[in-house]
């Protein structure tokens, strides 16, 4: 439970919960943080904005003792402090939820919490701890199952467990590194309720996000980083327009993509992939997809909406030929295919943007160029890193997603930079069907717009795009048709021109379309 370390003295202004002065952190030649200053007051929600690689995660990791800054000062309640390690940070009442979440999948929820808490007794007392977890969960509206194994949790619950774990440690300052990028709209509002609750208890909250809508919704102050420097410090967002904020982040104004004018002219084209009555079982025995029938048409973007875990992953895996359906048929160019048939689908030009790139794309220890070589080598015997490096540069020129140098190690990149590398490879590869899962997750504003433009161009060039996303605005802007999944069932396929947030939202809750 958060204990209040701060004092609210009447008269004199309250002491800042945390003050950062001229913080510098370098990694070899990369100046990730280059003189950062900002101040957080008690009971304040402070948003940190900036492009991918701007140094946001590096900054908050320094505040949590993961990194040691090269120079600069950190003042905690007015006192200069040195934060040697995460343990020190926790003693100081600072809690953090990392961008790449830190739970051990093989352990249960309560075991993960026990590992984190410093007051865990020698002989674990599961019953008592589970009760404490449940109590805190209920207090902050964070539904969790203390006895479940973490590997079986949805990404949303995984994050709630992280929050409960951090809250149980006791804190008066909470750092959230891109908490919303993996959440559904419903989960985001749950998270924000919790933030409001903590705020009313006097806890200071630092939140990193790429979404201006969210900044407007909860932030009291905003600080913008670009290239490791503070461009704006402690500014109240109400005094700034969207354009001003974007210009501060990117350095120039960014044109937001207009809604695609969709037409039904392709509707007569032969589908590339057709599913009819396909049901897929998940590993845990539940139904992933139930009786789903849909067609993937060339020159069209098929949006897929649904709350997390409604069958999106099973759908993309079926389209990619990775899954063996329990029943139903899958047609490729008019012929029935027996799945699994990964090689055959790939040969037919079906490629993917993986839903979880850190786990499904990144090979630890390998460079960006080696990843490109792996991508190019799929289906052939050649593996040429030098050629792949040149190829990556060429693709980057075409894709304009500003991918990092080929020599950089993938597992050391910021979350957004990993996504950019994957998108550069996927969106510039010749293909007939692109199955893109959450392509703009974790991307900054400029890259998000570039990615959407590339998807649009791909479709205009005649490819079929299946766009799985939790961002309804993105789906409405880009799609020709939107398929809505709820609990593995297809509750409707609606033309995007005739849809809006409300009607899609209704289908997402499981109400079938009237037609």
């Amino acid at each position, binding site marked *: 439970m958060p204990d209040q370390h701060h004092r609210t003295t009447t008269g004199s202004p309250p002491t800042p919960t945390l003050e950062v002065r001229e913080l510098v952190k370098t990694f070899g030649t990369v100046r990730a943080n280059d003189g950062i200053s900002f101040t957080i007051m008690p009971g304040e929600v402070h948003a940190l904005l900036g492009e991918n690689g701007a140094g946001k995660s590096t900054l908050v990791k320094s505040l949590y003792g*993961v990194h040691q800054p090269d120079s600069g000062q950190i003042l905690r309640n007015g006192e200069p402090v040195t934060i040697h*390690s*995460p*343990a020190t940070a*926790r003693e100081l009442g600072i809690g953090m939820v990392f961008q790449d979440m*830190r*739970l*051990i*999948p*093989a*352990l249960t929820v309560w*075991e993960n919490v*026990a*590992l*984190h808490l*410093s007051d*865990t*007794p*020698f*002989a*674990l007392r*599961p019953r008592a701890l589970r009760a404490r977890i449940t109590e805190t969960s209920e207090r902050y509206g964070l539904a969790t199952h203390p006895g479940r194994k973490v590997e079986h949790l949805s990404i949303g619950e995984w994050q709630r467990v992280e929050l409960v774990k951090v809250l149980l440690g006791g804190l008066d300052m909470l750092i959230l590194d891109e908490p919303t990028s993996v959440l559904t709209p419903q989960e985001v509002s749950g998270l924000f309720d919790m933030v409001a609750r903590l705020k009313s208890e006097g806890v200071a909250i630092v939140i990193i996000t790429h979404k201006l809508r969210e900044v407007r919704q909860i932030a009291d102050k905003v600080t913008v980083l670009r290239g490791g420097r503070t461009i704006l410090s402690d500014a109240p967002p109400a005094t700034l327009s969207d354009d001003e904020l974007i210009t501060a982040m990117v350095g120039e104004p960014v044109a937001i993509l207009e809604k695609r004018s969709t037409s039904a002219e392709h509707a007569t084209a032969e589908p590339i992939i057709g599913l009819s009555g396909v049901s897929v079982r998940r590993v845990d025995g539940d139904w992933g997809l139930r009786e789903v029938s849909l067609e993937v048409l060339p020159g069209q973007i098929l949006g897929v909406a649904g709350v997390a875990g409604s069958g999106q992953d099973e759908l993309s895996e079926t389209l990619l030929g990775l899954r063996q359906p329990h029943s139903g048929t899958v047609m490729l160019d008019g012929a029935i295919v027996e799945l699994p048939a990964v090689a055959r689908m790939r040969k037919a030009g079906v490629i993917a943007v993986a839903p979880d790139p850190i786990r499904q794309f990144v090979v630890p220890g390998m460079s960006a160029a080696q990843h490109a070589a792996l991508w190019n080598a799929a289906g052939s015997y050649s593996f040429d890193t030098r050629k792949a490096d040149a190829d990556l540069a060429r693709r980057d020129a075409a894709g304009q997603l500003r991918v990092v140098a080929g020599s950089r190690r993938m597992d050391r990149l910021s979350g957004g930079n990993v996504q950019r590398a994957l998108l550069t490879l996927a969106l510039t590869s010749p293909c007939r069907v692109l199955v893109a899962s959450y392509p703009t997750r974790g991307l900054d504003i400029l890259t998000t717009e570039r990615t959407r433009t590339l998807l649009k161009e791909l479709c205009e060039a005649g490819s079929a795009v299946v766009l799985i996303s939790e961002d309804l605005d993105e789906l409405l802007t880009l799609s020709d048709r939107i398929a809505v999944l709820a609990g593995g069932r297809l509750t409707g396929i609606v033309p995007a021109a005739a849809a809006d947030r409300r009607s899609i939202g209704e289908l997402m809750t499981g109400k079938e379309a009237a037609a």
Partner: protein
Amino acid sequence: MNIVGEVLTTAIPGSVALLYPSLGELISERSGVTNLGTEGAMLAGALSGVAVTIATGNPWLGVLASLVAGAACGALHAGAVVWRRANQLASGLVVWFLALGVTSVLGSPLNGQVIDPLPAVRIPGLADIPGVGPALFDQNPLVYLAYVAVPALWFFITYTRPGLTLRATGERPAVVFASGSHPSVIRFAAVTVGSALAGLGGAQLSIGIVGNWSDDMTNGYGFVAVAVVIFARWSPIGVLIGSYLFGAALAVSSVVQANGIAVNQYLLDALPYAITIVVLVIVSGFGRSNAPESQRDALSETQ
């Protein structure tokens, strides 16, 4: 005594000699370090146990010495792997070879010297159970300690804070670090303690069972221990089953030998190993694996 009792009487002490190194290996691997030096630690334990017993006349000081010798081998391996980031497989094999060479040089004067093995302590009441009683409850104290060791270890890794930290270290050291513990320290401790148990296994062979020292007397028990842990899927109960199975197979083949039944000698010697592996491979197909994440990729280097 009946035939079951006869087999059990030989089976139990042999099983215990495998159980200790297996439990040690389990602790080590749960922290994320494979220790192929287990065989070496057993040899070191076996020799120092005999040497100290001869020097002092007290077999319990011998047992103590075997623990220390095993721990030293473990510290060597852990030092190389944890602090110097050496390859786990290479370092383990080097420790084994080193121990093999050193024990055969230092042990040569002791070859053929006989000591009194650890005395059996008869547990009144239980030892009178007809059939199995004497086999289970008229043994040396190391055997009784082994009975307690398995549930104790199971409780330790499942229900204590250090046990939880140990498991977490084998899964994701970075998370353990973020929670305020030091994965390197935990690994060092786990490998050293695990190896001390291997030394104890060596003592059970040399001072517990035969009462003398001979070159390379551990006969690959240390390597079987590594296999037992893997096929037992890193669970203490599985290790228990694997070890007693091996002991039973060993006992059956020696009873066969003792009764003069004509079977190829080498085949007979190989039999316990073969039976243990085959059964464990079959059994390991069922249930869930506890394989630590750092061990999942075919025993490669960690970090």
